[in-house]
């Protein structure tokens, strides 16, 4: 299964295992989203 894409300046590639683990940890640690509704302001 492919991992999410990460962009560093002009380079776009799949996340490494380490980057993916950090990404998932950041997502899990994020505060509850306040923009859940599609308000499109």
């Amino acid at each position, binding site marked *: 299964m492919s991992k*999410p*894409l*990460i962009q560093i300046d002009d380079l776009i590639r799949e996340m490494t295992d380490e980057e993916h683990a950090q990404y998932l940890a950041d997502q899990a640690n994020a*505060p509850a989203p*306040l*923009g859940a509704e*599609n*308000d499109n*302001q």
Partner: protein
Amino acid sequence: MPVPDFSPGEVLSAGAMDQVGLWLVKSQTVGTGVSSVTVTGAFSSAYDNYRITFTGGVSSAASTDLSLQLVGATGNNYDTVLFYTTFGAGTIAVASTTTSNFAWAGQGTNQGATQMIDLLKPFLAEPTRYSSQFWAGGVGYAQGRHTLATSYTGFTIIPASGTLTGGTISVYGYKK
């Protein structure tokens, strides 16, 4: 006469140019379907304070919060407070968090992503200060600090869900 006073054919003097208060440091076009965008080489000794904008892109999520993380600073050392209200509510709510990035740093929607952030002293070996506009679900204003006295040269924009496509991230330096 305000300075600088630019007119067609005028020679721009160093004195006039030195009065320019906000200078474009770097622009970065966002690719397609990326879960984060890192901009390197954004902060240096040339400026102490920076404005970051992101417009023109869209998120795959109908609406998602965006966050900002300093490159190399992945620990839970970001304190952020958000003052916000929903349209028609008439009351101010407050939210706060300590996490691994500056939260509530703009909004991504499938009709457009919008960010306008000020970072104070990211390159100096002092705690970085942060302020941002916030629009998701209403309007708000976020303020925060990174508690480590460390120098940083870049940042990463991260949507809370989904991916980002297109648009331009611009970094401006405030004249010292």
